[in-house]
């Protein structure tokens, strides 16, 4: 085994290697399906039909993809600065809390102001919760990975306390807030498109999807077309060189983490403001962790993140439909696929690059 990194053509590096790891992850998932006594081909067909076979299915798929775009982008932005933000869950939780407080405090605001304020509240909450580990790493040297893990748990206990004691719905047995004011809530896509003569079935897909698409474009612009993006990439590639070039790694670390947390807040916007119209416990539902898989698979590039989010949207929606037909295959299969993907596309990257290089080399020779 040589230590020299494997040389690959650019197209293979950005497209082929992730593709191979996706296929390998799906094969592993297929083995699990076989292991519980079901037919993986039949399961795949059911899954694809459930996710893409109807307008309703596509609506649900895009709704799930919205969540993954936000959490995937959050991880990706931090990655560009050389930071590993596994605090998406906690950041989205605090974003949801901040948003709920804004919504409940500003219930008198007219419609065109309430929603933007709520969204800004979410972004601020997420940014704050990510800024803390960023600040701790930049100024105190504590590793962002450990602090984000710890802050995930702090956020999880914080929301339980707040929903029970402070902002909870009085008299409700569920840990949840009262319903948000109607003018703050995001419009579902089917209602939004109906006046234009486009008739869609009712799905949770809402305006947050458009926000997610804008976030994809904005992150692309930020990372590759702005001075700050250049600073982020420079610090990610080599903090010492960045410092020599007059860029402050400490400042970039804090800013990149805050942006990352604000993006994770998008999850709260889609779930609480767009679908449930109130804040409930555990609304993050592991989307933050799947965002890691999305970012790794998408190679940190917004286009890749979008595609990977779409794939996970298909898996989530298709998985939900599949579990109706095949109760043995629960939606936790998506978590397994996510885990295998993180392993293959993230940790075993070297192995997959070598495999791909081997195949390309053989083609070239033959």
């Amino acid at each position, binding site marked *: *085994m*040589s*230590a020299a990194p494997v040389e690959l053509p650019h197209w293979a590096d950005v497209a082929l290697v992730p593709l191979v790891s996706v296929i390998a992850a799906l094969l592993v998932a297929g083995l*699990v399906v076989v*292991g*519980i*006594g079901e037919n993986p081909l039949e399961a795949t067909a059911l899954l694809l039909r459930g996710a893409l076979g109807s307008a309703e299915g596509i609506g649900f798929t895009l709704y799930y993809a919205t969540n993954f775009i936000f959490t995937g982008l959050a991880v990706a932005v931090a990655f560009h600065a050389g930071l*590993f933000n*596994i605090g998406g869950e906690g950041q989205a939780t605090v974003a949801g809390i901040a948003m709920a407080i804004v919504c409940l405090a500003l219930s008198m605001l007219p419609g065109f102001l309430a929603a933007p304020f709520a969204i800004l509240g979410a972004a601020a909450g997420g940014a704050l919760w990510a800024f803390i580990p960023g600040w*701790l790493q930049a100024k*105190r*040297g*504590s*590793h962002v*990975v*450990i*602090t984000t*893990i*710890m*802050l995930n*748990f*702090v956020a999880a*206990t*914080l929301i*339980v*306390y707040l929903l029970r*004691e402070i902002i909870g719905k009085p008299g409700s047995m569920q840990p949840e807030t009262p319903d948000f004011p109607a003018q703050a809530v995001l419009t579902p896509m089917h209602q939004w498109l109906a006046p234009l003569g486009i008739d869609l079935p009712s799905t949770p897909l809402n305006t947050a999807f458009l926000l997610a698409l804008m976030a994809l474009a904005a992150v692309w612009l930020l990372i590759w077309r702005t001075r700050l993006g250049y600073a982020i990439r420079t610090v990610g590639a080599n903090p010492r060189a960045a410092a020599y070039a007059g860029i402050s790694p400490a400042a970039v670390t804090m800013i990149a983490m805050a942006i990352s947390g604000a993006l994770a807040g998008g999850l709260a916007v889609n779930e609480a403001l767009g679908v449930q119209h109130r804040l409930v416990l555990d609304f993050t539902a*592991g989307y933050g*962790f799947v965002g*890691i*898989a999305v970012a*790794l698979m998408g190679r940190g590039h917004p286009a890749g993140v979008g595609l990977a989010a779409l794939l996970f949207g298909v898996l989530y929606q298709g998985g939900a439909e599949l579990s109706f037909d095949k*109760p*043995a*295959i*629960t939606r*936790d*299969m*998506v*978590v*397994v*696929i*996510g*885990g*295998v993907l*993180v*392993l293959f596309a*993230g*940790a*075993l*990257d*070297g*192995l997959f690059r070598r495999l791909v290089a081997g195949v390309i080399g053989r083609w070239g020779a033959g």
Partner: protein
Amino acid sequence: MDLLQLVAVILDSTIRLSIPLICAAMAGLWSERAGVVDIGLEGKMLIAAFASAVAAFVTGSAWIGLGTGILAALALALVHGFAAITWRGNQIVSGVAINMLAAGLTVILGNAWYGQGGRTPSLEGPARFGEITLPFARWAHENVPGLGLIYDEVVSGHGAPAYLALLCVIVTAFVLKRTRFGLRIRAVGENPAAVDTAGISVAGLRYGAVAICGLLCGIGGTYLAVAQSAGFLPHMTAGRGFIALAAVIFANWRPWPALGACLLFGLLDAVAIRLQGVTLPGIGLVPVEAIQALPYLMTIVLLAGFIGKATPPRASGLPYVKER
């Protein structure tokens, strides 16, 4: 209930709540002392809990459950080793993957096999680790005032894996500190190049440490499912792997202080359970969440160097490249 009795009850649940933490903390200690960062403790305990509950249910033997739990955790540990040591992958990413994998697999397989929403059937009789009454416990309870009660309630009456876990602390402390193997493990976490120069295999030592880590996680997970509870529940580790990680940081990567940190976190948990809905004079209703969040907050504060300083092994998290 008189005060002594209350203290004994709280200390007893402290021990019960600490055992999984202690196993996972010793596991993390081995791995990180050898330079392999492991945030997959949670996943390894979870898979061990599931595998041990299934095996104990099928065979009716708690000990076979323990063996199976250890094997399951070992398998995941070797996956981590393969990614982190052989392929020099990102150790954090690999740990995240292991946690996700375990969380998903245990629910899917449990649901497919038993159809109870991911739970395994409840274990009875020899399929569970019974409570071991230590010698003289009853006698001491009746004849020695104070200490006898503590001995009977707190020290005696735990399942076999609990005593195994305490043994593991002693062995870990001794082997890491006093043996040649332990010295080499520590060296490979501080300066792998020096170990390599001495002609000792860096990869071999690290695989060894990672395997020991798997073994210990296996004991911890088994304790959860087969001794503390009577079966597996989805996500039953509930963040204990991460609390254990916090304990390792707290203890500055040393075994005895890690034991102390685990006991402290266990005590906080036990007190939090006791204080649920209790109004204290002068403080009012204690928010249990505040006590539950304490270990995490304390770790953040410690890592930031506001109280003391946490210094991880120098080479931790860095893959070793011979030619560098």
